[in-house]
């Protein structure tokens, strides 16, 4: 656990959970692109069918805030920092399918324009940070809403916190597997390290997300749609 104190040179490739070029093998990168393509295609299809005009400005604002928040690295212990991933937040604000579009756009711009996350790793970066956290985070949030009718009290914020923390851990887990399969670092080395660091970063994610959701629920509750209890069959339009 002892972190050697050494002047860490600024790396030419900033990462977060953003995987840089060179960490993933060719086949693994290809699988990432395929997975991302499948889920983004589903998300586009679902959003196409259900997106109300009212959601569009909210999607834009959500993307803007998540991009900005991802620049704000907060310190965690051991000379390490972390930042918001935002998948759970996006899913709660705009719903899971639109959130995948939002997260894919943010991660895409980060990779293509800001060289944050490698081109070859873009597929898995989208999958790790824009698909897994969105779908799982929304699922747990949905469960939390079942236990609370009102929007007051601690159940919902606690549920949001737990959902956010779990999604960061899952993203770290997925990243570790991808690195291990790529032969970059053995699983028994990379997995405990990633899970350990991100258990702390996840707390930040949980606090920020719970605070943001509480803020929106108190100022503009109309923006957050309650999840539909009965899944609509087929198209609504």
């Amino acid at each position, binding site marked *: 656990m002892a972190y050697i104190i050494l002047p860490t040179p600024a790396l030419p490739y900033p990462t977060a959970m953003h995987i840089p*070029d060179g960490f993933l093998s060719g086949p693994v990168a290809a699988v990432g692109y395929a997975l991302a393509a499948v889920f983004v295609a589903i998300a586009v299809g679902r959003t*196409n069918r259900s997106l109300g005009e009212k*959601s569009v400005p909210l999607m834009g604002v959500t993307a*803007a805030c998540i991009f900005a928040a991802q620049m704000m690295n907060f310190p965690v212990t051991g000379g390490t920092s972390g930042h918001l991933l935002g998948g759970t937040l996006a899913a709660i604000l705009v719903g899971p399918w639109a959130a995948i579009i939002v997260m894919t756009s943010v991660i895409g711009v980060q990779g293509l324009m800001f060289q944050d996350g490698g081109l070859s790793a873009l597929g898995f970066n989208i999958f790790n940070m824009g698909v897994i956290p969105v779908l799982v985070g929304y699922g747990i949030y949905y469960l939390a809403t079942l236990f609370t009718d009102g929007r007051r009290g601690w159940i919902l914020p606690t549920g949001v916190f737990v959902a956010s923390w779990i999604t960061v851990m899952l993203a770290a887990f997925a990243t570790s597997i991808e690195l291990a399969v790529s032969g970059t670092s053995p699983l028994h080395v990379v997995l405990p390290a990633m899970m350990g660091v991100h258990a702390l*970063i996840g707390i930040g994610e949980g606090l920020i997300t719970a605070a943001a959701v509480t803020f929106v629920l108190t100022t503009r509750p109309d923006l957050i749609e309650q999840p539909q209890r009965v899944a609509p069959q087929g198209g609504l339009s």
Partner: protein
Amino acid sequence: MTKKGYVILLLVGLGIALLVTLFSPLASSKPDGLERVAEDKAFVDKGKDAPYQVIADYAFPWVDNEDAATVLAGIVGVLVVTTLVIGLGLGFTALSRRASLSAAKSGGPAPPVSGGGGTASGGDAASRGKS
């Protein structure tokens, strides 16, 4: 929500995002999660530079002041991301409106364009392909 409501939402939301970017020079510059692990577990050297750089490392090029370069990069990023997502969203809503219009008149084989919707010919082609 009224049109004014959308504009207010957009302005307030963008305002929050831009406000956050103003504080981005204060962000911790310590290595973050994956970076830390990559250093500790000695696989950081496997990372490669990007084949090209636009605003790499969230530092706007040609700006000497580091803080200003970071804030500028943040502002550019916020505006690009917002424009992209709103553009995509508007595209999707336009598509879904056209799809529901063409679905409404997909009963007969290629009916003459009725006055109601004023859809482009692409809509007709789409509905014909589907049915």
